[in-house]
């Protein structure tokens, strides 16, 4: 039985003379670059050769995506917050593709608490900016007299980061444990029918069965959690403005 749950690997690292790591780039960042390149490629392909009256399917798809983001921001944040729509769309595509990239065999970038913590920190900055912008710095500091308010202020980004991380990483760990268990079951089956596992090792149970769990943990949970993340971002920003 071989259960191997690892954090993100170091892909690029610079060592100094004693062999200590001075600078390292983790797997999540490199996979994040791939996601950014994929989003850029999709944008360039979809918006190529645009016309006033949509002629092809590509422009219809692009308009559908833009309308989806605009509608979501308009219904959740109001007409005066429409300049947040590009940020919300970028956040949604980054988190969604970064989570779904585990279907291609990469490690999900959101299964790394540094990535989700960074995204939650950006949301925290936006919330605080909107609160100060709407009420003034004096009123903002006055609410901080109550210590419970400080706790709730800090708990918002922490909860957002841990929610995304916990869902994706929990699903990843369950998938790894399931693979290990199915490998052991295949080995037991081979021993039972008399094939030596050392000579011919092919895990028959690992075909097909993990796909059922993958539909839930990768597709459903990833989509729901990225939707929830942007939804909470919009709701908290809107709450900060009021």
């Amino acid at each position, binding site marked *: 039985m071989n259960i191997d*749950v690892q954090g993100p690997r170091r892909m690029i690292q610079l060592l100094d003379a004693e062999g200590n790591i001075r600078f390292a780039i983790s797997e999540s960042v490199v996979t994040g670059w791939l996601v950014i390149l994929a989003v850029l490629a999709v944008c360039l392909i979809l918006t190529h050769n645009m016309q006033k009256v949509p002629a092809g399917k590509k422009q219809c798809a692009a308009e559908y995506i833009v309308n989806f983001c605009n509608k979501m921001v308009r219904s959740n944040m109001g007409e005066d917050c429409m300049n947040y729509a590009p940020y919300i769309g970028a956040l949604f595509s980054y988190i969604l593709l970064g989570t779904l990239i585990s279907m291609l065999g990469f490690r999900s970038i959101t299964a790394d608490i540094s990535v989700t913590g960074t995204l939650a920190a950006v949301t925290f900055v936006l919330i605080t900016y909107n609160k100060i912008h709407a009420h003034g710095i004096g009123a903002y500091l006055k609410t901080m007299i109550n210590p419970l308010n400080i706790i709730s202020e800090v708990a918002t980004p922490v*909860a957002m980061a*841990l*929610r995304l*991380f*916990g*869902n994706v*990483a*929990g699903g990843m*760990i369950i998938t790894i444990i399931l693979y290990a268990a199915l490998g052991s079951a295949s080995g037991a089956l081979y021993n039972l029918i008399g094939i030596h596992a050392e000579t011919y090792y092919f895990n028959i149970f690992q075909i097909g069965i993990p796909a059922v769990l993958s539909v839930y943990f990768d597709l459903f949970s990833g989509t*729901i*959690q990225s*939707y*929830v993340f942007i*939804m*909470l971002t919009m*709701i908290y920003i809107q709450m900060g403005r009021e």
Partner: protein
Amino acid sequence: MENEALLQAQSIVLAGQAIGAGLAMIAGIGPGIGEGYAVGKTIETIGRQPEIKGEVTPTMFVGCAVAETTGIYGLFVAIMLLFANPFLKYLG
């Protein structure tokens, strides 16, 4: 002899971590009950007024995700105990 004592101490710490991780996942009970209640109420509402299904369903998912937070905290503690081994370093 000293190695054996260290090994015993490590076994006790690892066993305690595994038990603690299992106990931490008791936190999954609360979100389970809460989300079940929320989804049940949502289905009740949709049964009464089927035309507002499109508005109620996203709200339900957001509410479920917020209700899930405490369970995720428990899961995070369990993951920390199982894979990060925070207490082994106190053995020296």
